[in-house]
């Protein structure tokens, strides 16, 4: 698929003690919605913070909208970023956030912000004469407020760190609609990069996916291509060692086994009593992440 990059990264590297984020090459396609998926501690937030210009203590080079740098004039104005914590300070209230956003961003529309807060049904106790601080808000309302400040601006790129995690199913569904509309109305010039653990919920909004593990990118590509790349392998009984070697991951159960394999290897399974299915994004991600995961079933 032909596309240009909205973000291009080269040799992005950041070390914290034993952890190392190491991304030799990164391409976020323009005009699409990209999901960043990985285990807790995989480095998703660090990478998003680097790409959003929140932290600058990394090595490597990041370019936006072609060959522009984050500090070039107008670049930050075109990027909408929401973080998971410390985005707003806990003692701020909604009124201050409205004023502050207006001061910080030339493209912030106060009336639009009010309208978005109303349509997202954000707890109005943080606004008005006796406004409470945002520390009193639930995680879901806080995320909605963050999203409102970003959607009230004219941006060309959204970088959202786990926007769906604290939201209820209804709001998550609405967020999907908002993100789809954002991309559709951009005529190929608007892009989204978000991290998520709710792969199934966000699959409809995902065009391109990056799977991260332990600071490294395991897989990246358009969802359609990725789905063609892998197959689900199902069979009765126990999977043989020969079969396991050919698969990326295998899970055994009472009624047989299920695993993931590369679609290009399906011919090597000929003669075995197995069936193939097209995987959804969730299964692909789980299979990829299981390869190196330290998670195991605890004894209950």
């Amino acid at each position, binding site marked *: 698929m032909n596309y240009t990059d909205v973000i291009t990264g080269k040799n992005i590297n*950041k070390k914290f003690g034993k952890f190392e984020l190491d991304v030799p090459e990164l391409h976020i396609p323009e005009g699409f919605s990209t999901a960043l998926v990985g285990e807790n501690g995989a*480095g998703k937030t660090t990478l998003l913070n680097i790409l959003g210009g*929140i*932290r600058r*203590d990394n090595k490597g080079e990041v370019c936006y909208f072609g060959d522009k740098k984050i500090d070039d004039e107008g670049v930050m104005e075109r990027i909408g970023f929401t973080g998971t914590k*410390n985005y*707003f300070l*806990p003692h701020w209230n909604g009124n201050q956030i409205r*004023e502050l956003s207006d001061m*910080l961003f030339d493209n912030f529309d106060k009336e639009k912000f009010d309208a978005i807060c109303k349509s997202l049904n954000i707890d109005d106790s943080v606004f008005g004469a006796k406004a409470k601080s945002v520390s009193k808000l639930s995680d879901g309302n806080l995320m909605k407020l963050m999203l409102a400040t970003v959607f009230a601006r004219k941006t060309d790129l959204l970088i959202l760190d786990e926007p769906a995690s604290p939201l209820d199913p209804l709001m998550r569904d609405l967020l999907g609609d908002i993100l789809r509309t954002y991309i559709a109305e951009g005529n190929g010039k608007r892009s989204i990069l978000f991290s998520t653990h709710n792969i199934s919920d966000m699959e409809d909004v995902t065009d391109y996916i990056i799977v991260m593990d332990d600071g490294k990118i395991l897989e990246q590509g358009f969802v359609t291509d990725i789905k063609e790349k892998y197959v689900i392998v199902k069979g009765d009984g126990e999977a043989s060692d020969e079969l396991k070697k050919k698969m990326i991951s295998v899970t055994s159960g009472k009624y047989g086994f299920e695993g993931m394999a590369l679609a290009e290897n399906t011919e090597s399974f000929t003669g075995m009593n197995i069936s193939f299915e097209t995987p959804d994004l969730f299964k692909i991600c789980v299979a990829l992440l299981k390869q190196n995961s330290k998670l195991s079933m605890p004894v209950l």
Partner: protein
Amino acid sequence: MFKTIRQYKSYTSKNVMAAAYILFPAAIFVLLVTMAFFGRNTEVQTFRTILTTFSIMVSVWASVVVCLSDRFNFGAFLSDKSRIGEIARTSSKGIKMIKSITLWDIFSRLLLIVISSAGIAVAGYIGHPDKGLKFAMMCILFILTCHLITSLLVWICRMIENQTISTLIYSFGILYFFPVALIFILPEEIIPSFIYTGAVIGQIILDVIVNSAGMLLLNRFIKREWYNDGKDRK
């Protein structure tokens, strides 16, 4: 400067800021000069009481404004643990605003202390040309000391990231004003004029050094927080 005042407005009401930074010192200046003019023939001790009262008012004002501006303006961008709100980092204006607010805060405080001190000096000279100026110097010295100590402690509070210590410092800040008794105990004659002048100049220099050092530390802190942090955080 006006842009920065507009930024202040967002966190503290316009009236409070106007009263804190303009009306109060202006009123002190006018009142002092007027009272000194009409009270030219009052006895020295009465005049000393008037000047001392005004000195305390100016000192309390300066110290309270330091703490207020810390909570309402500096604190508007930095949390209790001095972390910069991420939203400010996502804007090209964010860090510039933090620096300009702090700079304007220091500049306005020092400027208005100078205005108030000038009022006290003028009042002292008008009231008692022979002894008044020397006594006014003592009062100004007291104001500058209070401001210097408060600034120093507030900058420490901003950097140490310990809310309990900050609260203690803010709560007991009023204790700095007790040395005011010295103004009454020490007769101004025992110290030569040039020492007073030297002490006032020295205090102003110290005040500027403390606040400039604070600004430099803030700058370093911003760089550390934004460009070099994360040794132990993801």
